[in-house]
């Protein structure tokens, strides 16, 4: 019951925060001088990116806990975080180019942040595809957890590699410096949006996790029913 109450609370908070966030984006935040109104994509692009990485960190943590405890609830959490994480990562990769095209005239430039996000997307996809192709649930959980842990360890290496590579071969930067001289109204709007999208992440994550919990419950009941039937047949 506590879970239901938390879920309802998160949903309510999400609706309110998102409403405030969108109001701020369209009515409060000023229009950026150089890029014009398109710049407002920034207010979804950045929070989506932040949460994409948060999701991956969660997959790492849950994978690690699974290997340590072998409790399937950690595996369910890892799967849910990965799915929502890949959704958010995909949206970062879509909103980035939609922003870049009108502003810089090109869809993609292999700039450091977007490239890192693309690699993250590929690692996430590998994780989810591995899960799809392993038959036994036990093996699936273990192998996925190994990928979840090693994938995350790779992220700092990818970050440093791409960053140095880009300083050596510079390209136009798409996402722009987040902290670099942001008008206070813009930064306030950004923070509210980050909060709203984080709540969105957890709302979706919770719903996805609930399905896994129900699935486990149904399976347990099915096993009980089979056992009872076998016993009845014997007597």
């Amino acid at each position, binding site marked *: 019951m506590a879970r239901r109450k938390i879920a309802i609370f998160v949903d309510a908070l999400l609706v309110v925060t998102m409403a405030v966030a969108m109001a701020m984006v369209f009515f409060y935040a000023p229009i950026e001088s150089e890029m014009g109104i398109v710049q407002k*994509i920034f207010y*979804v692009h950045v929070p989506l990116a932040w949460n994409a990485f948060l999701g991956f960190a969660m997959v790492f943590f849950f994978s690690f806990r699974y290997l340590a405890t072998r409790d399937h609830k950690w595996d369910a959490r890892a799967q849910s975080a990965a799915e929502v994480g890949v959704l958010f990562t995909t949206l970062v990769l879509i909103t980035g180019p939609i*922003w870049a095209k*009108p502003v810089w005239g090109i869809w993609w430039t292999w700039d450091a942040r977007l490239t890192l996000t693309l690699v993250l997307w590929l690692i996430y996809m590998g994780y989810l595809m591995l899960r799809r192709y392993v038959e036994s649930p036990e093996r699936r959980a273990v192998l996925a957890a190994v990928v979840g842990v090693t994938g995350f360890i790779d992220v700092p290496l990818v970050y440093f590699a791409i960053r140095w590579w880009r300083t050596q071969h510079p390209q136009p930067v798409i996402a722009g410096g987040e902290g670099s001289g942001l008008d206070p109204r813009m930064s306030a709007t950004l923070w509210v949006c980050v909060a709203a999208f984080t709540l969105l992440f957890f709302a979706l994550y919770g719903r996805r996790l609930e*399905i896994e919990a129900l699935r486990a419950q*149904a399976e347990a009941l099915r096993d009980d029913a089979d056992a009872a039937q076998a016993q009845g047949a014997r007597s």
Partner: protein
Amino acid sequence: MTWLIAAYAVVVVAVVGYGASLRPKRRALAEEIEQLKRPR
């Protein structure tokens, strides 16, 4: 301007779409659990 709308639209559609795809699964599982709980 259209770019801005396009970006926001994609986000909304994707998020709502994903959330909506979860609903029938949840319903199906909840029903199955009800059935399994019912005594024979």
